[in-house]
């Protein structure tokens, strides 16, 4: 186990290095200029001062070495070009937990409800509940989240006044964004779980279970459930990383000060340090999430032996 984590961490570091390098040169090569984006008219002299402050007057490769040196020695992502005076690390520290809170709650409902609905649909194949769940799943996947957001805001928030329409602060502020965030995920998990359960139900070992006298409930609980979860584990990896990134659309619609908004804005502003810093942050989360998923695989499926470092 220890060896496995060590090995995967080493690979993860190589992946991160490649991502940082690629992102750095790509964003430098991108057209546009953060200073120009910030203020349309600015005296030549002032621009030069600002450029010098961020080191933008130096050649790209030199900036790369400086950036890497700072990053490795101090873990500093640098100061935002747009949000003057705030470092990228501060912005992550202040805003990532907000995205994460919504994301974790939403992910919990996505997995539990999705798996449950998928199982119900599969076990009642071609009956009413199956058709109902399948139609709802297609709807939930096809209709964009901002439509759901608008509907919920109008009815639950405005018409019935159960929750605030937007904003951030109290427990009630969580309800709508979490619901909108979860709905698509519930549908995807339900769809995958249904397919996976149906294929497991046709496996020979399910017939063996029936042949030894297992009744339906026991067959489902002991022989079908765990085996159908295996493909679901694959899906959760990127989802775990995604929860910190938040959803730009949802954060925007509900005016939530999460990280998703900053990320999208940083790209349109060509805010070099922000884009780089946030990309690295998300990449680290991804790498960790994927290692976690591999460990989780071993828990669900004994055939995958992590203990031996394979």
């Amino acid at each position: 186990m220890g060896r496995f984590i060590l090995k995967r961490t080493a690979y993860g570091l190589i992946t991160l290095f490649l991502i940082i390098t690629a992102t750095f040169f790509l964003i430098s090569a991108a057209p546009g200029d953060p200073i120009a984006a910030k203020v349309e008219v600015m005296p030549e002299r002032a621009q030069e001062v600002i450029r010098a402050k961020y080191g933008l007057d130096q050649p790209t490769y030199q900036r790369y070495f400086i950036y890497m040196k700072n990053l490795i020695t101090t873990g500093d992502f640098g100061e935002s070009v747009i949000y003057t005076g705030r470092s990228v690390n501060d912005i992550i520290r202040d805003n990532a937990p907000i995205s994460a809170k919504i994301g974790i709650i939403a992910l919990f409902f996505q997995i539990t409800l999705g798996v449950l609905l998928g199982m119900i649909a599969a076990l009642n194949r071609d009956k009413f509940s199956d058709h109902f769940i399948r139609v709802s799943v297609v709807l939930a996947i096809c209709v964009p989240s901002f439509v759901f957001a608008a509907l919920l805001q109008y009815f639950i928030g405005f018409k019935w006044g159960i929750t605030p329409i937007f904003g951030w602060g109290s427990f009630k502020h969580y309800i709508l964004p979490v619901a909108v965030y979860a709905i698509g995920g519930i549908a995807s998990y339900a769809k995958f779980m249904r397919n996976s359960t149906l294929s497991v139900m046709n496996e020979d070992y399910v017939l063996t279970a029936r042949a030894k006298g297992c009744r339906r409930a026991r067959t489902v609980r002991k022989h079908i459930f765990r085996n159908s979860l295996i493909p679901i584990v694959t899906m959760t990896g990127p989802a775990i990383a995604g929860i910190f990134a938040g959803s730009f659309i949802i954060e925007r619609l509900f005016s939530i000060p999460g990280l998703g908004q900053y990320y999208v804005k940083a790209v349109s502003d060509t805010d070099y340090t922000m884009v780089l810093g946030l990309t690295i942050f998300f990449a680290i989360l991804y790498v960790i999430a994927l290692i976690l998923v591999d460990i989780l695989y071993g828990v669900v499926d004994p055939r995958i032996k992590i203990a031996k470092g394979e």
Partner: protein
Amino acid sequence: MAKERILEVENLTVAFKTYGGSVQAVRGTDFYLDKGETLAIVGESGCGKTVTAKAIMGLLPIDNTTIGNENSKIMFNGRNLIKLTEGELADLRGKEISMIFQDPMTSLNPTMRIGEQIAESVLIHNQISKEKAKEIAIKMLKLVQIPNPEERYKQYPFEFSGGMRQRVMIAIALACDPKILIADEPTTALDVTIQAQIMKLINELKKDLDTGVILVTHDLGVVAGAADRIIVMYAGKIVESGRTEDIFYNLKHPYTYALLQSVPKLTKDTSKKLYSLQGTPPDLIDPPKGCGFAPRCDFAMKICSIKTPEKTTFAEGHEAYCWLHHEKANTQGVPELILTRGESSGK
């Protein structure tokens, strides 16, 4: 020797609804099984062997399957299994009637420990503690000759070879000491050397536990050493049945003849090509009116494809369904073996 009859099947029919129509997979079979006896059901793929076996177990898909008509019976312990509910059948399965399957590689739950899969069968059917079930499971592993049963109990199926897994399947099937063991092609997916071991194990355990065995197979080599009686099936019907020696040495049906001709023999002249039966079994969505084998039969007459042949009895329990045994039959060119009457000479 008076034998106790443990299973009696009468006029069993099975039909599957498909988009193309209703497939008449089994079209009225009658047979029985005595205590401690091995009955082999042979025939090529798609002739209804496995469906017959699964019908006895009640393991066919419920939704689009019709099992039996008003005259059909599967009598076991004074009960007609066709009439039982799913719950009543579940209580019988694994306890009174067990089944092992063709492919041991896929027949065990990959995420459950071997021992627990055996113990589960014991736990379902008996009011005993988990510790006691574990003890029985280890005893069963020992019985099917798996070394280090205590260690092996904790392992998962992927840590077992194919032959070992089939032994585990046998252990699961026999854990509750059933009266009938249905073995559906138990050796088909195994290496030839392992096949013999598994058949030997089934035979030994059958004798020790006095279990009746229904052996479903297309491999006549497997049957020869193991079966007491044989049923030959074709296109959903029994074409010939009798004691093993009758079927091998005194066969009475051209299909049985063709099956035996296509078995390679060590003593045979190797310069000649091995006999191969041409064609495929008929489509059972629209089953033939006459004898199902008629289109492929070398000795077919006009009547064969018009009318289903009657039963002809040759010796005690040796029966065949073929028009060749009618007194008006044209028997020119038919091997003498098929035509002769009387007891088996091979005995």
